[in-house]
């Protein structure tokens, strides 16, 4: 059993859980994730490790209430426990001195891109974080993000805070204005990963996307998470989750993420209505 020692609501439907796990607190690296399971009936779901604290022996996850499992996770409180927490899984994000690195995140990903921005900055890169949220209410951890970056751009879909317009548009403008960018890391929904990759492709800027495909074990045993990159089948849980966005078969990725659309509705109806 793994105990939740802190729970915080960060924005509508977005929560932080701090979970006790001393070994993970020591071992986690930027870009890695855990697979957790709430209880006996629960599904195994992957969540990025948003932060870790060796002294406290804990890790942070931030998540968005999407379907049955994340809705249930949102009902847990401090002091509650979950039955399973495995990690740190996946290959860590490649952190090197690249020059100017742009970290792009939308929605809940604003929470878990921070370790990457931080590590990139520590390596001596100039880091721009470009965060995109629906509206002002959804903006969270602005200070943390600012601290992890040299420059922080916040944009909202409705323009209620920061710049207006989707992140890929802003990225496009940056490039058109002659900003030199050496590397891009993108986290968030599939369509945004694709849009950013499409924009950087003509510029030949390496664009690393974190592919959130559907997982079970997270250690390469089932193949549920398979994606096609550069014409080759890869398991996102062990070969990724980071991949070269210019080589991803996006149609396949989006199709595979929708396999259980009907079942997801049924599960929410069964447990939350």
């Amino acid at each position: 059993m793994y105990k939740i020692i802190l729970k915080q609501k960060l924005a509508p439907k977005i929560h932080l859980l701090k979970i006790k796990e001393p070994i993970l607190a020591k071992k986690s690296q930027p870009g890695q994730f855990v697979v957790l399971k709430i209880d006996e009936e629960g599904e195994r779901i992957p969540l990025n490790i948003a932060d870790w604290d060796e002294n406290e022996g804990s890790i942070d996850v931030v998540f968005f209430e999407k379907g049955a499992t994340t809705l249930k996770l949102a009902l847990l409180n401090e002091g509650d426990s979950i039955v399973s927490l495995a990690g740190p899984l996946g290959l860590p994000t490649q952190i090197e001195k690249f020059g100017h690195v742009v970290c792009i995140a939308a929605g809940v990903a604003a929470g878990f891109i921070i370790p990457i921005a931080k590590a990139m900055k520590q390596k001596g890169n100039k880091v721009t974080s470009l965060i995109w949220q629906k509206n002002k209410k959804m903006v969270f951890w602005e200070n943390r993000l600012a601290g992890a970056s040299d420059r922080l751009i916040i944009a909202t879909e409705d323009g209620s805070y920061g710049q207006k317009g989707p992140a890929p548009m802003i990225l496009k403008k940056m490039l058109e204005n002659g900003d030199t960018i050496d590397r891009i890391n993108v986290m968030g929904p599939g369509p945004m990963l694709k849009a950013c990759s499409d924009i950087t492709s003509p510029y030949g800027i390496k664009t690393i996307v974190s592919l959130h495909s559907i997982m079970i074990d997270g250690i390469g045993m089932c193949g549920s998470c398979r994606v096609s990159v550069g014409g080759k089948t890869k398991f996102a849980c062990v070969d990724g989750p980071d991949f070269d966005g210019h080589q991803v078969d996006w149609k396949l990725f989006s199709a595979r993420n929708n396999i259980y659309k009907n079942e997801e509705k049924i599960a929410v109806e069964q447990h939350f209505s």
Partner: protein
Amino acid sequence: MEKINLNRVPMPKQKPKTRIKNFDEVALGYNSQQSKNEADRCIQCPNPTCIEGCPVEINIPGFIKAIKDDDMPEALKILKEKNSLPGICGRVCPQEVQCEEKCVFSKKGAPIAIGRLERYVADWEQEHLKSSGQSFIKLKPTGKRVAVVGAGPAGLTVSADLAKLGHQVTIFEALHTPGGVLTYGIPNFRLPKNIVNSEIDYVKSLGVQIELDSVVGKKMTIDELLDNNFQAVFLGVGAGLPMFLNIPGENLNGVYSANEFLTRANLMKAYKFPDYYTPIKIGKRIAVIGGGNVAMDSARTAIRLGSDEVSIVYRRSEVEMPARQEEIENAKEEGIKFRFLTNPKKFLGDEKYWLKGMECNKMKLGKPDKSGRRRPITISDSEFIMHVDIAVVALGTTPNPLIAASDKDLEFTKKGTIIADEKTGKTTKPGVWAGGDIASGSATVISAMGAGQRAAKSIHDYLMSSD
């Protein structure tokens, strides 16, 4: 000479019509009369050949005699001397090519049903005694600590044996439940999970600790275990990487690896969806590609999940199928169709990337290949389309490269298996042993247990000679 009785007592089973609607065990087990009748057939050969056929050398005539004599505690004791998991082995071992094949009655087509008797004894224990390690004289604690990686049959066996010798054993298991393939692969209707759990409880009762959610290679490395006060490490991580056909369309929605299909159904209990949260796609027409136990388990799971038509698609003919005969029979009784000499060439999908069908070739058999089975040859221009909405690829598994990536001292074969001495399980890295599917490639439960036993002996010698 005793009169020879060739009437092998049949196994009582759930009726096909009933059992395809549930996930309960198909084979119901002998009752005490049936077990006595079967045991009475054994003529107690003075030089028993059956023992040679047993990878862990159970004193087979001994435990059968105890059944005859109505001395069940004795039967159990004899079994458990050599086999820590008899309830499992009695159910899933391929006795027909092991002990029973060596039985003198085998030539007459009626070997003693050793597996069924083994199961009877194990189930008797379940009913009458609480599984407990106390019936064993445990040696004095040695103060030596052993880390075992993987809680499958190999890991559980090596742990039980070392614990009985007084060593302190901790198992590190990647998943949230121990048991390995016994838990995530083999379905409940063939191997009930309460049986697996009580055998695991037995191992725990010997003092073995099990740390779940512990992916070695990620959460800790082998070197960290060795530095961390473990004097020896045993790797029993199995061969968990699913093989695919590598043909076009294999990533379409609706194409599963058998590992994923069975993991969803068994480990995650998707057959209880939505009470259990993990979904599974069922489909009206399912094709399962392959001819081994894994294919039979997938097909029989599919029919229980409510699929209208389940076909096994196999590129050779029935006689070459590696699955146990008993499981093939069970599958047939349950209405599973068999398409022999058929090989998929391409998966066909619709515009939304959903599987719609498979283009297949007809095959014929040529000369025997390395495996001794006749090689399948594609018949040219024989393409035809099978309409299916789910396909399960059950070709087998290879070792998971995760451990290899995390340790630079271990040596591996081209196939990805760890190089380990067959007699001792010793790897090329000092202090590290390996056994089971990770060393042999996909094999059987009992061969994994045999490897665990041999490694336990070798580890024990090593621990007691080093101070």
